[in-house]
């Protein structure tokens, strides 16, 4: 079957076979390699995208069932040669080690801050609890997010 997705504001068509996932379609059919292919069971969050505004593990979304939906991926953050403020904060605070989990963390953080501009420390941890960093770089990630919250508070 053929599906239509609105990826980062752009209408894209892709062929889909059987039960393949949205993650597979993004990566293998549309060439968007930001969302990562890792655990494939919803544990790690490295494939997190915003599907109709909600953060989901794209590995657990059947692509056929996403047809007609809005999809925001890490590629849609920032502009030409320009970082999104969340990306800039991650760079600033060294919240990237190997970088594999980073797109997922970025999408979860973007969703959090768009819905709750001044989350508490607990709310930040809760919002990021579905994203795993195997380098264990959580401290820097939390400092990056907290820096954005601090700016908004002041």
């Amino acid at each position: 079957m053929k599906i239509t997705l609105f990826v980062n504001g752009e209408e894209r068509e892709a062929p889909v076979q059987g039960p393949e996932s949205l993650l597979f379609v993004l990566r293998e059919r549309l060439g968007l390699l930001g969302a990562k292919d890792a655990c494939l069971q919803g544990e790690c969050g490295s494939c997190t995208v915003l599907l109709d505004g909600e953060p989901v593990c794209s590995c657990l979304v059947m692509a056929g069932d996403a047809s007609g939906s809005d999809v925001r991926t890490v590629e849609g953050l920032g502009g030409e040669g320009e970082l999104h403020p969340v990306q800039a904060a991650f760079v600033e605070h060294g919240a990237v080690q190997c970088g594999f989990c980073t797109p997922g963390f970025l999408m979860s953080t973007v969703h959090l801050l768009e819905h709750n501009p001044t989350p508490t420390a607990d709310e930040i941890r809760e919002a990021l609890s579905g994203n795993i960093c195997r380098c264990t770089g959580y401290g820097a990630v939390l400092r990056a997010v907290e820096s954005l919250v601090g700016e908004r508070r002041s």
Partner: protein
Amino acid sequence: MERPSGLEEALGALAANPEATLLAGGTDLMVEVNYHSRRPEHVIALRRVEELRQWEGTRLGAGVTFRRIEQGPVRALAQLARTVGSPQIRAAGTIGGNLGTASPAGDSHPFLAACDAHIELQSKRGTRTVLWNEFLVGVKRTSCADDELITAVILPDQLPPRQEFAKIGVRSAMVIATVSACVMVDDDGRARVALGAVGPTVLRARRAEEMINAESVKSEAALAEFGRLVSEEVKPITDHRSTEEYRRHAAGVLSRRLLERCLAA
């Protein structure tokens, strides 16, 4: 893949193809696809069925996500929803899916058992509602017929005002329950306790309930006996997640702790 946008259309599709695989949030089915090479021939995707997403009073549509339940008004239901997977899983996963999968560790089950919820099933043949323990009949087994769709959870008109849920696992997110428990206390002081992940299906510890409900004063000794009876009544196994012994112990401790929280409320 069929993507019905209304209930009648969904029931028609299922009647025409009772062997079809139903897709709700996908958080269980896609793990089967990704890990066990499951290739469902015919999928009926329910995400667009508006009727399933309705939550009005005591009628909780099967397609309501754990994200919405987490933000909803029912205390223990919100507590358990908060323990389901991660924000990403809660945004997709539905209560109907949690029932359809019928895992012994299903996070919503202790709540539904404690309040004696009914499950509404619809097909082209009609609608029936069954009590939770007539619906969950074994490990990953339900009494839902092939042409039936889980359409809603029906909560009792009066939910006990004091209700607490808790779950034990190796971390506080992304965890399948080692033991889960829900305790409710009615206005007249009667307690109910339901335990998950300690038997083929969720279970009520009826002897523990009877014992504590016969005690007008919930003394230290009575609370200890309540926990002991729960530990005795559960039917856990040893598997890769925990041991029978630990689960028995934890079921008793958790039940007593939740009862104390209810009584203090």
